[in-house]
């Protein structure tokens, strides 16, 4: 699965984005592109030290300033669904060696994920950590 496919699937979901400068942004993903540039809505920005907060209606973040994104657990299951749909092609056709759909997942792979969702709710809430660790 490609990281950008997961990100694309996360559209409409809340997420946390940490930038290289340590600032974090909590908001709903509106859109993203192949450079990982993202557009968030209803955003809360937290300063590097986690001591100041700003609310902004929306923001555009350039992909190359991102350190990581935290997305809701259930999004990964939705990617699988999409993948299954696009995987309905004759097996063994095309694709020179290498990855892609690979790793021997059958199309029913998505059903294999159980026992998740321990920590429901609240994900729209706080940053993973109250800001940075002051590094």
């Amino acid at each position: 699965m490609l990281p950008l496919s997961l990100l694309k699937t996360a559209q409409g979901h809340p997420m946390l984005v940490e930038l290289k400068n340590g600032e974090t942004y909590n908001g709903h993903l509106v859109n993203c592109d192949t450079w990982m540039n993202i557009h968030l809505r209803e955003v809360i920005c937290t300063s590097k030290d986690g001591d100041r907060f700003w609310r902004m209606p929306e923001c555009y973040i350039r992909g190359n300033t991102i350190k990581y994104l935290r997305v809701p657990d259930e999004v990964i299951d939705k990617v699988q669904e999409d993948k299954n749909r696009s995987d309905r092609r004759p097996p063994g056709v095309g694709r020179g060696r290498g990855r892609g759909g690979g790793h021997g997942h059958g199309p029913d792979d998505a059903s294999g994920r159980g026992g998740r969702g321990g920590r429901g709710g609240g994900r729209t809430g706080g940053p993973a950590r109250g800001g940075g660790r002051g590094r």
Partner: protein
Amino acid sequence: MSGRKETVLDLAKFVDKGVQVKLTGGRQVSGTLKGYDQLLNLVLDEAVEFLRDADDPLKTTDQTRRLGLIVCRGTAVMLVSPTDGTEEIANPFIQPDGA
């Protein structure tokens, strides 16, 4: 891929509105968006830079300096957001999880 236009955010809706821009290196400016291109070069009018803490250049202060009409180089733009509706707030995360 290179032919794809910047569709993530349509800056047209911000033209003649106040925007806040964060640049790589830590500078932060706000001004009225007068123009832009697909490389995210921005023209800001009546731009103001938020000065930074002398001890910690990553922290901005409320002190400003007036820059006037400026061009922000697209490659240096990290973040764009509308000034309208942006405000500093108290800690909205009552209980940070995982901490």
